[in-house]
């Protein structure tokens, strides 16, 4: 540990004292000690900064520094160098203090021979070295502890942060949950959640208000027995089963029974919620109360039906003369045939063949009269006919029969161009018949001023695009001025002296109530064409 050559910095302003120390060191171990001398502290500090020394021999009373301050300034300049204080006889007290504040040892000037100085220097170096080592070890330990502490601290903060964020997430979740139910509660739509067994899991405010039940009392109850009217339980169960089996969203309408027994009609959109393993866990129904809307629609339809009925009666009134004539014809023939038969049989001049033929003709004419009455009666029937599958071509023929008398009377020929195959159509038969008859009669009436052999009406049925059925009624009348193409459909528009001007407006309402369209256009080369399209049944 003791270097082979020991560099000493001797700080001493008294040249005699300095010389004594130098001599003492040389004499004990010549050549080993290499002594550099400084007279002032400032000089010493400069040397310490520039060179490495193994020990400093330090006089405490220098011209530019006194006392303990001198020691601390040296330590400051080089903390690693061992310091041995040189003190006079009278100030050993100060020397002891110097040792306490960082010097390794002290020597009393004049009393310390070379041997003593040399040993003191060696010890000082060794002590300082050990001290330094110890300090390093201590420092290392400290560093490790600090490191570890820092690690722990970091982990700790991380944990802290994690806990905080979890708290926050829970808050958010809680907030979100509250938020979602708050949002659901602001909806006018009814929301209800059922489990796979159809038991009530949850519902929102609108549902509660509509039914009069609080969630707390309905929770876990069977949806069907609590909220459905018995007749509808089965079909709704079928909807639920299909929904939970397939998971595919569906729609349905059913009535919801409230606590007070009142029912509301709800249009539902149904979806499912999947569980963790992807299985269908819940069914969610979102419903809108369409009771009022449906009632309004029903009233509207009822009104249309009533107006349409009145219009049919009035049409039959207008056609009464023709129809009476039409019925009177076969009756007249029947009476004449039967009178003739009686006469022939009475006079004994009868031919059996002739009688049989007359009787057959009587039968035919009776049926002819019956058909006319049947047509009129079915036309003026009031009650709503259920929408049924119908053959539009057959309906056209029926209408032509009704309008035939008027057409014949006015010298109008009716031609038919009926499509061979048409997509199936479901509609209210009488209403569509009414539209057709109205168009055909308008066409017939439009041709009063046309030369008799040019009065033609053509009725054509065809399959339109977009799965629709089209019926066009063309005439060879005066046609419509461009500004009338729309106007003729407004209620009470008429150019006829005794017309009501309701026919086309009612017809348009009827067609639109069937999801179709009725419009007018110019016919080629002359006249007008009124046509309507009706959506065919979805296949």
């Amino acid at each position, binding site marked *: 540990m003791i270097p082979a050559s020991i560099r000493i910095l001797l700080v001493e302003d008294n040249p005699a004292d300095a010389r004594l120390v130098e001599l003492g060191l040389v004499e004990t171990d010549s050549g080993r000690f290499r002594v550099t001398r400084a007279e002032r502290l400032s000089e010493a500090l400069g040397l310490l900064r520039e060179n490495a020394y193994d020990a400093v021999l330090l006089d405490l009373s220098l011209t530019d520094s006194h006392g303990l301050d001198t020691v601390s300034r040296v330590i400051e300049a080089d903390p690693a160098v061992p310091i041995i204080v040189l003190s006079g006889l009278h100030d050993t007290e100060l020397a002891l203090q110097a040792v306490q504040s960082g010097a390794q040892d002290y020597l009393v000037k004049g009393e310390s021979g070379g041997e003593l100085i040399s040993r003191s220097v060696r010890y000082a170096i060794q002590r300082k070295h050990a001290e330094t080592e110890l300090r390093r070890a201590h420092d290392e330990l400290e560093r490790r502890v600090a490191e570890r502490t820092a690690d722990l601290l970091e982990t700790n903060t991380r944990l802290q942060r994690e806990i905080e964020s979890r708290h926050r997430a829970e808050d958010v979740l809680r907030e979100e949950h509250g938020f979602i139910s708050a949002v659901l509660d602001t909806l006018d739509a009814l929301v209800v959640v059922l489990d796979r067994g159809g038991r009530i899991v949850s519902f929102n405010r609108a549902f509660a208000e509509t039914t009069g039940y609080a969630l707390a009392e309905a929770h876990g109850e069977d949806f069907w027995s609590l909220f459905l009217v018995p007749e509808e339980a089965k079909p709704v169960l079928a909807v639920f089963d299909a929904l939970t089996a397939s998971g595919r969203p569906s729609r349905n309408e059913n009535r919801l029974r409230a606590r007070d027994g009142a029912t509301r009609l709800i249009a539902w959109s149904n979806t499912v919620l999947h569980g963790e393993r992807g299985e269908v866990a819940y069914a969610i129904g979102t419903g809108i109360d369409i009771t009022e809307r449906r009632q309004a629609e029903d009233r509207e339809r009822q009104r249309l039906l009533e107006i349409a009925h009145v219009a049919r009666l009035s049409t039959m009134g207008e056609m009464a003369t023709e129809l009476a004539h039409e019925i009177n*014809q076969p009756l*007249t*023939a029947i*009476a*004449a045939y039967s009178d*003739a038969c009686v*006469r022939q049989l009475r006079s004994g001049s009868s031919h059996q063949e002739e009688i049989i033929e007359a009787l057959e003709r009587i039968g035919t004419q009776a049926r002819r009269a019956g058909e006319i009455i049947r047509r009129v009666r079915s036309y003026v029937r009031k009650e709503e006919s259920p929408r049924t599958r119908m053959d539009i071509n057959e309906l056209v023929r029926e209408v032509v029969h009704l309008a035939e008398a008027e057409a014949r*009377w*006015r*010298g109008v020929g009716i031609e038919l161009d009926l499509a061979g195959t048409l997509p199936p159509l479901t509609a209210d038969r009488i209403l569509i018949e009414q539209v057709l008859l109205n168009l055909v009669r308008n066409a017939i009436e439009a041709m009063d001023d046309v030369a008799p052999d040019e009065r033609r009406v053509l009725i054509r049925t065809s399959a339109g695009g977009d799965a629709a059925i089209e019926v066009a009624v063309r005439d060879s009348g005066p046609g419509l001025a461009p500004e009338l193409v729309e106007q003729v459909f407004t209620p009470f528009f008429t150019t006829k002296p005794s017309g009501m001007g309701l026919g086309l407006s009612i017809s348009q309402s009827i067609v639109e109530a069937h999801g179709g369209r009725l419009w007018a256009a110019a016919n080629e080369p002359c006249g007008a064409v009124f046509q309507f399209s009706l959506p065919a049944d979805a296949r």
Partner: protein
Amino acid sequence: MQSEPTVYVVDDDEPIRDSLRMLLRSAGLPVETFASAQQFLAAYTPPAPGCLLVDVRMPGMSGLELQELLAARKIALPVIIITGHGHVAMAVRAMKAGAADFVEKPFDDELLLECIRRTLARDADTRRRQSRSSESTQRLAALTPREREIMEHLVAGKSNKAIAADLGISARTVEVHRARIMEKLEAKSLADVVRIALSS
């Protein structure tokens, strides 16, 4: 066209034509039927006797129009109008326009046949009278203006003496004219003279 009086039925409805044909034939009446006024006009040659039974309501030319056309062409065929039940207005119009009669559908066969027979009888009568009147006209044409003047006084019921005074001639001369008039008109009595003068 045969000269036997015939019932001409014009109606656009086939069962009505056919049943009427059977009924009228059962009653022993000759019948011919037509689906329209035009068909009838094309087939009928005046002055074939009989009567026309025509529906007032027909597409094309109606019964009333046919009646007017016949009148305009001076075809003296009596017309019986067929109307629907309760169409009194139509019937009145037809009668004013000179229809012989009207019948309502459905027919009462007794009434119909009676109506037809009456009309046929009247037609025959008219034709007889018509042919008579044309004879009278021929005979009257043979009279001189003086003889015609004296005949008119005779028809007015004046005596020979009054006529002579009126015309400023002698009663003897009136006597001679009167004998010539009776001879020319082939009249056996004054009553005959009056009838011939009025039937022209």
